[in-house]
């Protein structure tokens, strides 16, 4: 074998080992949105814009995922506190509509320093 033959063999082996390393290395799970409603839990990637209709005892709470953040767009509750909570973007942050029993949380990735360690409802 000639000099560049060895080079391509080494390159091939390096790619094998390198990709194995990347695949096996522990990594943070991608950020995703968890929506809990009357039907159970649903998951959606945070980086894909979409509109979710979460069903509760009062009706439909509309949740938007847009531009890497998630917020409650509309809800049948009286005080609209969930809407006022605004947009969340980091892991551990949450928005909730208590009257309609809708809970929206961002999970995965590294936890945000501002997020509480635990929450009880």
């Amino acid at each position: 074998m000639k000099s560049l033959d060895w080079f391509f063999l080494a390159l091939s082996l390096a790619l094998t080992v390198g990709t194995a390393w990347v695949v096996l290395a522990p990594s943070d799970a991608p950020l995703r949105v968890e929506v809990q409603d009357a039907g159970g839990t649903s998951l959606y990637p945070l980086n894909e814009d979409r509109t979710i209709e979460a069903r509760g005892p009062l009706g439909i709470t509309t949740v938007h995922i847009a531009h890497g953040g998630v917020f409650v767009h509309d809800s049948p509750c009286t005080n609209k506190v969930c809407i006022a909570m605004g947009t969340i973007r980091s892991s551990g942050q949450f928005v909730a509509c208590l009257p309609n029993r809708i809970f929206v949380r961002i999970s995965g990735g590294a936890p945000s320093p501002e997020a509480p360690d635990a929450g009880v409802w």
Partner: protein
Amino acid sequence: MRESGNRLDLPRPVRTDLVAFFGALSLFFATLEYLFPKPIPFFRLGLSNLPLLVSLGFFSFREQMLLLLLKVVGTGIVNGTLASHVFLFSSGATLASFVVMYGLHRLVPTRFLSLTGISLAGALASNAVQIALAIGIVYGPAAGVVAPWYFGLGTFTGLAMGWGATAFLKHSKWLGRLHAQG
């Protein structure tokens, strides 16, 4: 630049017939390859690239492209997969492999690089394209887990095809007589 002293000096109709014959050889090896069980989905052994590899030294670029087209389209027709995503995988991988192999063959002198190295480089290019297509079109980002398998198996098949092509070029009496005609 790689020496082209072993180009076949044959009349054009004969050269075109030879391209068709090598195209048939490619299809023949592709059919044999189809019968081998694949260790991972979409993985190809590369047997059908042997005629392309062997003929690098004596076909012109145009003839090589014709051979490539015959191989890719012909495999699609013979296996019945011309109108499916399998054709996309096959043609993408073969084209990438050919561009790398032909480029190296033309640009790098033989004292630095043999057919084994060219075959390894071609296998790398082919597998990289197949991984990209598998991730981008069929399986999504999670399919990245097959990358080490593709590159690992590709190293073995690249070496094997390179050694096979070198042995054939060295020992084939048929090829020797063909060169003697040209």
